[in-house]
């Protein structure tokens, strides 16, 4: 079964065809992804949901170039990343992809500002000062830039991670349970920020989550089970997501 997010061919940020991922061999062989076909529209906030072991994290890792796919192709901004070597893949990541993780988002030895600037610093590029100011102001981090991660609250740390992801104006920002470690109020704050970045900055966001409330902030929800895409919700609400999940037997 193939499910494709609504798009026209010109505004696709990320696209995968016939994507498969196999771990192990023989009796320990696990097919984490079975020929997934998926496209993510530019400027949209998409959530991927599914029960544990459904392959949602594997899908994200492959799409982001963090893990090699066993078969199929992945295109980010028109580039087939499945054919890139490690260095090219790394460069692609720092130019076209941003990340927000559940935890351990920041390099503990660097200040918040240095963390935000890290991907550009690694690329040896100058940052756009005005853009940095806009992001920092939007995320309310102005007074926190000189702090080390351990001097920041969980929500502040996550906002620093979001700022870092947005600074490079990447093709796509991947979020891996970005609110998993936050209390509900701080979590809602971060999710609102992510959503407004799609609305106001046209940022493409793909987020993996198992939290129906988090998913309800997305424009589209993709449902996965046993390594395949099995459903899709547009303009989801907490109720519609919960219902769809229970339809998967979760």
């Amino acid at each position, binding site marked *: 079964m193939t499910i494709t997010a609504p798009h026209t061919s010109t505004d696709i940020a990320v696209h995968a065809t016939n994507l498969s991922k196999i771990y192990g061999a023989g009796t320990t062989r696990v097919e984490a992804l079975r020929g997934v076909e998926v496209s993510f529209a530019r400027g949209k906030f998409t959530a991927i949901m599914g029960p544990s072991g459904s392959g949602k994290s594997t899908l994200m890792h492959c799409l982001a170039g*963090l893990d090699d796919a066993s078969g199929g192709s992945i295109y980010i901004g028109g580039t087939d990343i499945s054919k890139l070597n490690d*260095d090219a893949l*790394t460069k692609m990541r720092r*130019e076209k992809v941003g990340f927000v993780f559940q935890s*351990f988002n*920041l390099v503990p030895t660097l200040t918040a500002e*240095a963390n935000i*600037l890290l991907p550009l*610093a*690694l690329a040896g590029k100058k940052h756009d000062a005005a853009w940095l100011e806009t992001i920092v102001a939007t995320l309310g981090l102005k007074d926190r830039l000189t702090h080390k991660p351990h001097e920041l609250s969980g929500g502040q740390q996550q906002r620093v991670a979001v700022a870092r992801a947005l600074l490079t104006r990447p093709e796509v920002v991947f979020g891996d349970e970005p609110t998993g470690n936050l209390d509900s109020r701080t979590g809602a704050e971060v999710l609102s920020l992510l959503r407004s970045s799609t609305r106001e900055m046209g940022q493409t966001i793909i987020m993996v989550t198992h939290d129906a409330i988090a998913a309800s902030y997305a424009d589209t929800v993709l449902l996965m089970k046993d390594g395949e895409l099995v459903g899709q919700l547009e303009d989801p609400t907490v109720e519609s997501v919960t219902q769809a999940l229970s339809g998967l037997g979760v």
Partner: protein
Amino acid sequence: MYNSVLQLALANLKTYSRRFIAVTLAVMIGTAFLGATLMVNASATESLKNSIGSSYANSDLVIHGDYSAAYDNLDAADTDGEPDPVGYQLGAKALKAVEGTAGVSAAHGAAGTSVSVHAGSKDYFASVSTVAKDPRLTSTVLESGALPSSSDQVAVDATYAGEYNISRGDVLDVASATEDGKEISKQVKVTGITEASNDPLTGANMSLTVSQSLLEALSGPGETTYQSIALLSVGSVDLDTLKTSITSALASEGIEYTTVLTPDEQIVKDVANFSGGNDQLTIVLLVFALIALVVTGLVVMNTFAVLIAQRTRELALMRTLGALRSQIRSSVLIEALLVGLLASAAGVLLATGIMAGLIAILGATVPSMSFAILAVPVQAIVVPILAGTLITLVAAWVPAGKAMSVSPLAALRPADDVAMGNKAGKVRIVCGLLLLFAGAAALAYGAIEGDILIAFGGGMLSFPGILMLGSLFLPKTVSAIGNLTSGGTVPGKLASLNAVRNPGRTTATATALLIGVTLVSMMMVGAQTAKSSLGDALGSEYLVDIQILDYDQKGFSTDAIAKAATLDGVEVITELGSVGTSAEGELYATDPALLARVLNSDKQVPGSGEILTGSTHEASTLAATSYTGASGELKALVSDSNSFRPVMGWDTAERVLGITPAVAAEATQHESLLWLKADDNLDAAALRTLQTDLAVALGVEEFAIGGGMKEMQMFNTVIDMLLMIVSGLLAVAVLIALIGVANTLSLSVLERTRENSLLRALGLTRGQLKKMLATEAVLIGGVAALLGVLLGSAYGLLGAQSVMGAFGAMSVSIPWLQLAGVIAVSVVAALAASIVPARRAAKLAPVQGLASD
């Protein structure tokens, strides 16, 4: 460009500075060792320059006659086998030629003569130096008064002026012997006191500064010759060009064989002549410094491996955010570079401080060493810093490679402890085995053939081989011994599991200690065996411990001998009576039973009809004539001792020469000797006391007491001293390795914070946790020490065998106590190393640890 890699490295160093303490210490000690070694040589040279070279230190060039070059170029005219002095002696002609060379502003010939000085009622020996026309070339420095300006004036150095009560205004008689044997004497007045000479060659004598005219007067009618000519250039001239033009100017005067050197070059030459062994000392020290640096490298490698294991998630995050592999490696290497650079610089400072302190102590406590000064040559700064930095970089290379291969996905995994696998590569095992077998074969061959060079090469090959194979046997041994000693307790079992949890790390930690312990125990066993083998060899060389001569030929009274026999340390005493003469000189006889006991070798006891001779006797018989005129032939038993008074039993003397003790005692030429065997355990001080006591008891002067014991003790003292110095030097390597143990453990504790907290939460008490970590440290330290002692003993025995092989049979002797001491020190130190990390781990509340990321 904004350098993120450098920034990251700096941030890591700043944040985790405590984790770098051990690396810094290790590198610091290693480089301090290297720096101090280089400073020893330079300081020795500089000190000698300050002393030997003080006479020409201020000049631009120094000219010496080159006797050996002249000797090498003997021609037919030199019928007496000696070169013609014209070719190498420096005299007035030479001085004039030098002064006339373009580019020379002033030249001064240094006198090589000495005179006798009559002051008060005594005669003293004095070496002479002259006042130069150009004051810059005068080597003596005035303390008070004035330098001599005419032929009836002299200046005396302060030390001897004080000692001989000479003061300004005194009149001295100065006399010299001329070549034709006449004595020339002059009365001179002391006009000045000069600073004492630092020159060990002349410092032993009074030093007299005289005017050129007095020197010429004392030299007599012959030409004045100079020991050397020092000169100052005009300044603008190139010294190499000047050297060439001086050499040719001298050659054109017939003085073909000369050396023209700068003061520094001359110093090097003089120092080589004077000290001889200085460079060898440096080389030996450098070998030890190298060992210390290799151990340092292992500790650094280990530390970085652990630091990187701890930082895996962080590195993975960096990779996710777009850090290239090369950037990750650069960041780790920059950290290593900075740490290495700072630690090495600190090491050089430490070395300078230690050397300055040592030299200050030496100068203050040993008066004859007051000229010692500290020299810190550029190379003693640059080489250790380069070496220390390079070692750190090289050692960090492998861990940096592992950092590079961290997968970006590792950032997303929960915080497992990401073990850094370190399997022994097949290549390494094959290389290790090849080295081991080749080395062992060479070592065995060297030991059997008594060839130390081959054995040394074998050792140099096999030891790295064993170290390369370390990952095969070290973790297994640790684990086996851990299982044996765990006693079934949970902390014990956990400790032995933890100790080998990361085989690579355990191997590297243990290897560092293994190197040090192996080398220390090798030296101990080797020295002990060499000492005991030498003892056997020396026993036959020095057959008699103590020999007392009867210079006044009055003989020894029976009472005196009985009294001497009761002294502490005397085991056997026997009197030898002169019975006649032979081609080997005076012959002696003594009681055969006592003779057998007094001699140090039981293989060299003369039987009936035999005489024991010195090694110089070659024939199998010796013709003897008694002083009563009887003659006979004795069977010669040739000993290994080269200066030895031939001796036989009274039974033989009576049978062959008809001399009995009673006959001998009545003879007018009666001369007697006493031979003593002393307690083997006497030390040098006790031996001196015994000598004094013997002199009193027997009524002889102390110089009449000789014998081989002093020499044997000297040999033993030399070996002991060498052993002490070598062990001390190697102890540095052991110290660094122990820092490594503490470091590995404290990093492992950091790494296992979560796990230790879990154990605490599950009911492990603080005491048990501490005990667990202590056990782990002791296991690694103890096993490394044990294996090191075993390995070192094998090397020591084989080494001693290959050295002693040439001298004959080796007697194996193992210093059990010292070896046990080495193991004990390692275990205690490992235990001590666990204290701080264990305390830190125990302080953590169970919940805290679980929450940590």
